[in-house]
């Protein structure tokens, strides 16, 4: 396949993925909007007013970046894991596997589909948050880079999950038992400076903490972690997961008999 044909194949996968999550918008785009409104009402308005300031900002201002990032993470992951596993389950993935589309285009197509949903939901949640608080961007570059790379990272993770999954239960295990706890303990709702020293040290090993704080830095200019290290770590994780996913596609694990 020449470069133009590969580009067409990539756009075909991306278009299919965007069409899929917009077709079922009641399942994909609406729930995060509703959930985030509830978070903003409860944690921002009702409870947040009693908590007071955090890191120099009102509580609702402080949690807004974390909530946006939480929506981006869960939706990027869910899009790729459910879509790719569904294609595997229905065997429609064979349409791609028998075609001349190279493995890296298959991976990029699905990952960018996940990024599209992650970013779309992030945008929707950001619009929702404007009804409850004012938002400003401290550093556009850091904000966009973190959103994009976090979407890529969790899309890759969702892709790997879908390759290994044998049942729909397998697709929901990681989000339920790994992703959600890491996100809730990843500094979305609090600054880790509130934790005892020991738990601060433990929290540093949570990758989501770095992404949430990186994004919070981009919006508010404050962070619990070193931004440079967060960006490098995030990029390194993307590279590693990309290599893992490519290797799985190359060996055909769980895809080819």
């Amino acid at each position, binding site marked *: 396949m020449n470069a133009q044909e590969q580009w067409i194949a990539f756009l075909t996968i991306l278009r299919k993925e965007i069409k899929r999550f917009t*077709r079922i918008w009641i399942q994909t785009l609406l729930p995060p909007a509703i959930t985030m409104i509830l978070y903003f009402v409860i944690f921002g308005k009702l409870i947040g007013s009693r908590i007071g300031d955090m890191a120099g900002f009102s509580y609702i201002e402080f949690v807004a970046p974390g909530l946006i990032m939480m929506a981006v993470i869960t939706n990027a992951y869910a899009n790729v894991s459910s879509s790719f596993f569904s294609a595997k389950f*229905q065997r429609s993935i064979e349409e791609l596997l028998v075609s001349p589309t190279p493995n890296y285009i298959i991976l990029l197509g699905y990952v960018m589909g996940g990024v599209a949903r992650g970013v779309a939901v992030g945008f929707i949640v950001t619009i929702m948050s404007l009804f409850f608080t004012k938002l400003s961007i401290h550093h556009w570059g850091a904000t966009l880079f973190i959103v994009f790379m976090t979407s890529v990272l969790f899309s890759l993770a969702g892709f790997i999950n879908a390759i290994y999954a044998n049942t729909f239960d397998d697709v929901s295990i990681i989000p339920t038992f790994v992703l959600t706890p890491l996100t809730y303990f990843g500094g979305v709702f609090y600054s880790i400076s509130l934790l005892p020293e020991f738990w601060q040290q433990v929290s540093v090993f949570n990758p989501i903490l770095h992404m949430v704080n990186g994004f919070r830095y981009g919006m508010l200019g404050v962070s619990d972690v070193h931004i440079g290290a967060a960006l490098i770590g995030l990029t390194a994780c993307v590279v590693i997961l990309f290599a893992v996913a490519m290797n799985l596609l190359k060996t055909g694990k769980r895809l080819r008999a």
Partner: protein
Amino acid sequence: MTPALSLKNLRKVYNEKFEALKGISLDVMPGDFFAVLGPNGAGKSTTIGIISSLVRKTSGMVEVFGKNIDTDFSSAKKYLGVVPQEFNFSMFEKVEDIVLQQAGYYGLPRNQALQQTEKYLKQLSLWDKRHTPARMLSGGMKRRLMIARALVHEPQLLILDEPTAGVDIELRRSMWEFLREINAAGTTIILTTHYLEEAESLCRNVAIIDQGVIVKNTSVKHLLQQLNKEVFIFDVVGELHALPSLIGYRVEKTDEHSFEVEVDKGQSLNAVFAQLTAQGFEIVSMRNKSNRLEELFVAMVNGNKDLSVATQKEVQS
């Protein structure tokens, strides 16, 4: 001439235990209409799986129009269209989208993809259903959808794995007609089937696979020449009260209105009719008891004595 498909010593061992293919070699020439026959578990679908890269081969080589699927997989796959045995498209997507996407996976520009999607959906009588989700189609329509999808990039080699399984007779005939047309237009077709009538009716050449080895690879015509005997059923006017006495032929009653006659290779049907007429039997119709290729097929996979000598020689050569 470069074969449309060339397999060399193809082996597949599943889980280091079961050897599904034991080193098969096969050449299919361009323009051929080729049948791959074999009982369940013979290795037909494994072979197609390897060619289409859905199954990883243990060893051996596959070339499609001279392009190696390992070293030049992109070019090899462009030549190839595959219609699998099981439905393997998203049941939630619309008919048109399924075919269009497949065109995109082969790198066809959007305008060309739209044109070819329309062309093949119309040819396979699915154009009216283009906005229908695939799950709403009947079984026959789903099968035609898979053929349209496999053809949208206009492959030079089309492989169909039991394409008419579970399809009613009328639809099967119309699919045969369609396949004949695209073969006449130059597409090489390889077909696996359980309907031996299908192979006899459509194909010029045939390979019979059994237990992972090719036990026969020849033309259908040549294969049928090896048939030593055929059984014909004769239907008589009214009720059959007594069997005719045919000298030199085995005769057996089939039911109240018909009887069967076993005719050896070289024996004349004229002689049968002459004796029946002389004995006052009025015949209204006559037909083969079973599909001729089916008899050969059963004989081969059961190691029929009449054919075993000739078969063994070809397998070893």
